[in-house]
C-alpha cells in the first residue's frame, strides 16, 4: 500500500489509483502498415521487470488524470512521477 504523489493533486493513497501497465508504449501511427509480428509486439508484449520500471498510472478516484511513475517493483519505492508527454527522467 504505497503513496503516490499525483502531479496534479499531491500525495494520495494507492487505493485511489489504478495502474495502466508499462509506460512509453506508443500506439503505432499507421497500424495498417504493420506486419502481424510488429502489431503483436505493440499489442501483447510487456516487460515485467524486477527493479526499476516505468509505468502509467491513473488517479481514477481523484482527478482522473493519467501520468507516469518510475517504480522499483522489488520494494515499491517510487523514484519519480511525471506528466504525460514529459520526458522520462534519465534511467
Amino acid at each position, binding site marked *: *500500500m*504505497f*503513496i503516490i504523489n499525483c502531479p496534479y493533486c499531491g500525495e494520495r493513497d494507492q487505493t485511489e489509483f489504478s495502474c*495502466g501497465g508499462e509506460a512509453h508504449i*506508443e*500506439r*503505432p501511427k*499507421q*497500424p*495498417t502498415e*504493420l506486419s*502481424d509480428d510488429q*502489431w*503483436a509486439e505493440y*499489442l501483447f508484449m510487456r516487460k515485467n521487470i524486477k527493479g526499476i520500471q516505468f509505468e*502509467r498510472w*491513473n488517479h*481514477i478516484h481523484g482527478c*482522473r*488524470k*493519467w501520468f507516469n511513475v518510475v517504480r522499483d517493483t522489488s*520494494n*515499491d519505492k517510487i523514484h519519480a512521477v511525471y506528466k*504525460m*508527454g514529459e520526458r522520462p527522467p534519465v534511467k
Partner: protein
Amino acid sequence: MSNNLRINKNNFIDQTVRISFKFNGKKLFGYKGDTLASALLANNIHLVGRSFKYHRPRGIMTCGSEEPNAIVQVAKDPALTDPNVRATEIELYEGLEAFSQNCWPSVNFDIGGINNFLSPLLPAGFYYKTFMWPASFWEKYEFFIRHSAGLGKSPTKPDQDLYDHQYLHCDVLIIGGGISGILSAKLSAEKGLNTILIDDKSYLGGSTIYQDDDIFKINSETSNLWLKNQIEKLKKIPNLTIKNRTSVAAFHGYNYLLARENLTDHLGAHERKGKIRQRLLKIRAKKVVIATGAIERPLIFSNNDRPGIILSSSIKKYIDYYGVKTGENISLFTNNDSAYETAISLNKIGVKVKVIIDIRENPSSILSEKIEKIGIKILRGHTITNTDGYKRIKSIDVMKLSKDGENVVGNKTTYKCDCLGISGGWTPMVHLFTQSGGKLKFRNNDNVFIPDENKTPSEQISVGSSNGDFELDDVINNTIKKIKIFLNLDKNDYENLDIKCSKEKQKRNIWLLPSNKPISKSKPFLDFQNDSTAKDVKLALREGFKSIEHVKRYTTTGMGTDQGKLSNMHALGIIADTTGTNMGELGTTTFRPPYTPLTFGAIVGRNVGEFFDHTRRTAIHDWHVENKAEFENVGQWKRPWYFPKNGETMYQAVQRESKAARESAGILDASTLGKIDIQGEDASEFLNRVYTNAWSKLGIGKCRYGLMLNEDGMVYDDGVTTRLGENHYIMTTTTGGAANVLSKLEDYLQTEWPELNVYLTTVTDQYSTMSICGPNSKKIIKKIIPSLDLSDESFPHMSFKNTKIDNVNCRIMRISFTGEHSYEINVQSNYAKDVWEKCIEAGKEFNITPYGTETMHLLRAEKGFIITGQDTDGTLTPSDLQMDWIIGKKKYDFIGKRSLYRSDTIREDRKQLVGLLTDDPKEVLEEGAQLVESLEKPIDMLGHVTSSYFSPNLNKSIALAVVRSGKKLKGKKLIVPMENKNINVTITDTVFYDKENKRLNA
C-alpha cells in the same frame, strides 16, 4: 481460592473485585485483572484442551499470544460465540463462559484420545498417504475428515456486534509497550513528535514491570519501580496516544500498518451494550519503531507436552504479575539463565524449587550464584529424558548428557513434580519486521534470527529484545543509542543511567534433546497445536522434503492459529542438524499477516448489510416499487426485472409483457444505460477513432448505432450515439460498461490523442431515459406532445428532437432495441418520475405495459440483437457476431482495426454467433448449455448457448449461441446434451422476428 494457589501480594490484580465465570459449565472465581488462564491456574486447572491429532490432554503453556494449547470457545450464544480464543489473552469478566475445544464428550474423557495409542499409525502426511485410494471413496472420507478437523465452532447466527475502521496518522509509531517501547515513546513524544504507542496488553511495561528483584536495578531503584515512574511521566505527555489491548496485525510497505483494537472484549455483557467491540486501525506512520519483544522457547524432549509443563518465564509472570502459583512442587529445565529468575520469584513466595536441570556444564552468573546461596539444587549438564502423568505431569526422568550432547549417560533419576518450567532461550519477534520487507540475519552464538540493519526498509528500526538484546543494560543502552540517531535527538537523560543486571556467561543449545529411548519410541513435541513431533520432521526429510516451506506444509509444523510462534525455530534447528546445514543458510518460513488472528468483524467494519456496496436506484424507482416490480441487480443498479400481476410467475409475466409490447405498447425504464456527453471541435474525429463505423457524415439530429472494440479486435461495448450539434454528441453505453468505457475513452484522449480537442462528461445520473415501444407508441407520444411532428419525414427512425413535455425540456430519440416503432425520452432526472407517470396515463387506453429487463432481453433476442457481456465474452470480433456491416472498411484506423486481420482473427473456424431453433418448439434451452455434433466419445464441444427464451410472439423457443465455424453451418443439426436428455437443435439465422424490419416504421 482452592489449594491456596493465590498469593496475597500483588500490585496488578485487584483482589477486592471478585469475578465469577464458568469453565466447561463449572462455576469458578477469579479477580479483576486476571486472564482466563491465570484464573484457571488459580483454581488448579491445568487441563484445558485436547490436542488436534492425538487428542492428548493439554494445559496452559504460556501467558501470551504464542499460546498453542489453551485455546477455548468463548460464549454459548450462537451469534456471539467466539472460537479459538487464547485463554492467556482474554481478560476475565463477570459471566465469562468458556469451553474446551476438540474433545468429545468432555475434556476429561475424550473418545478421540484413542488416537494417542494409534499414533504410530498416524505419521506426517498420514492423510495424504491414506485417503488417496480408491478415488471413489473420497466423499466418504471427506465426511469423517471434516467432522474431526478444525478446532472451535463457528457462530451460526449473524454477528450482532459493532465494528469500526479508523485511519490514524502519526510521526512515530511505536509497537510494543515493554521497556524499550516506553523509552522510545518517551523520547519521541518529548521531542514534540506526534507519537502513537501500541501494546496488546491491558497494561504497559512488558516483563520489566514485574521484575522486582534487586539484581536488576536502574539508578539504584529496582527496575520495575524505575519503569513505573517513567510510565507515569509518559502518560502526561500531550502529543502521545497510547492504544492498549491493540495488536498490530500487518506491517505493509510505506509504513502502512493494520492493528486491531479490542474495546469491549474485557467487559461484562451489560457493559458492552451499544459500544463498538473492535476497531481496525489503519495507520500511516512517518517512522516506525518495532519493540515487539521476544518469546521464550520450549525445549524439545519426549512427552514435553503434558499439562503442568509451562514456559519458565510464564510461571514467573503468573507469580509476579497475577499472584498465582502454577503448582506446589515445581522443577525447572533450562539451557539459559531465565529459569533462575523464575526460581528466585518462586523462592520469594515460599515455593522452593526442587531441582533445576540445566544442560550447560558451567552456567555461572550473578543469578546462578544467588540460586546456590538459596540452596536450590542445580543439575548441570543434565537433561530430562521423559515425563510421566496423563492429565497433569507427575514426574520427570533426568540423566546426564554426554559431552557432545548427542547422548545420555549414567543412570536416570526420577523426580516427582506437579509443574515443570522449561526454557529453551528466546526468539525475537521479527514477524512485523519481515512483513515490511526487512531481511533477517542469523546470530550463531545464541541461535537467533535478528533484523539485519543493512537490509531494513527505510524509516523504521527494531529495538529491545525484538532486535536481539536480551539483557537489561543492552536493551536500554542500545535502544537509546538507536532512537537518538533515528529521531535525530540531542543529548537525553537516559544516556548515563546506572544499570545493574546479571550477565549470562555460558550458552548451550540442543534442538532435540537426546533420550535413553530410540526416537521412534519417544514423543518429542515440536508444534503443540498441530501435534507434530521431531519424528515427523525427520520423516519428512527422509522422504525427500528439503525446503523448509515444504517440510512445514507436509508436517503442518508452524501452521494453525499460533502460526508456529513456539515451534518454528526448533523445526529449523532440527532440519539444519539432520541435513548438516547452517541455520542461517536455511532461512525461515515466510511470516505472513496477520500476526495474531483477526475477526471477520474487524476486517469488514461497517461494510455489512446495506453498506456492503452502493445501491443505485433510478429516479423512477419508487414507481416500480409501488407497482410491485421484482428487481434484478445489474452492477450496483436495481433494475425492474418484471412486473408480475395477480400472482403471475416470472414466466407468465414476461410472456404477457412481451406480447403487449409488440401488439400495442410497452414502456421500459432505461435510465441505467451509461450516458457520456461528448463536446469539442474534434468530437466527430474522436468517434471515428473509437467506433468501428464512420461518424463524420452523421447529420445533426441523427442517431447511429456503434460498436466499440478493444485494441485486440474483440467487441467491448455498444450503444447508440446521437449528434446533438456540430461539435456535440451524446453516447450511450451498456449499463455495466458505463464506467469502464468512460475510463477507456479518457485514457486514449489523455495519452494517445492529446491533440484532439474533446471533453467527456458522464451524465448517466443527470438524465433519465424511458423507452416507449410498440405499434401504438406514436399515438402515445402524440398525446403527450401534441405540437411535435411525428411523421416519418420529419422524425424518421434514427433521429432525434429537442422538445418539451409541458414545461420540461426533453430529448426524444426515435431508436429501437425491440424492433418496434419506438421512442426514447430523455429528461433531467428530477422530472423523470413525473414524465413517466404522464406516459403511463396517456398510454392507459392502449394498455401501455411496463416491462423489465427480462422482457427487454426476450424482445431483442427475437430480433437477434446482441447484448455485450451476455452474447459476447471478450473473445468475439464483429465478424464473429456476423456484424461485418458495421466495420468501416474505408476508415484508415479505429481502435482494434489492425487486429481484425491478424492470423488468428481471420480464422474461419472461430466461434461465431448463430441462431438456434429446437426441433421441439416447446423445449427451451438452458443458457450456457454445450453444443455437440455427435455423442460418440470423445465428444467435441462446438460451442454454447448464450441467450435462450420462449418467444410468445413466435410461439416457439428461440436461442442464440456461439458455435465453431457457425456461419457456415446454417441448417446443420446439433445436439444439446443435458443431464436427463439430449435436445436436438438446428442452426439458423440470428434474426427470428420481422426479418425485413417492417415494424420499425409501422
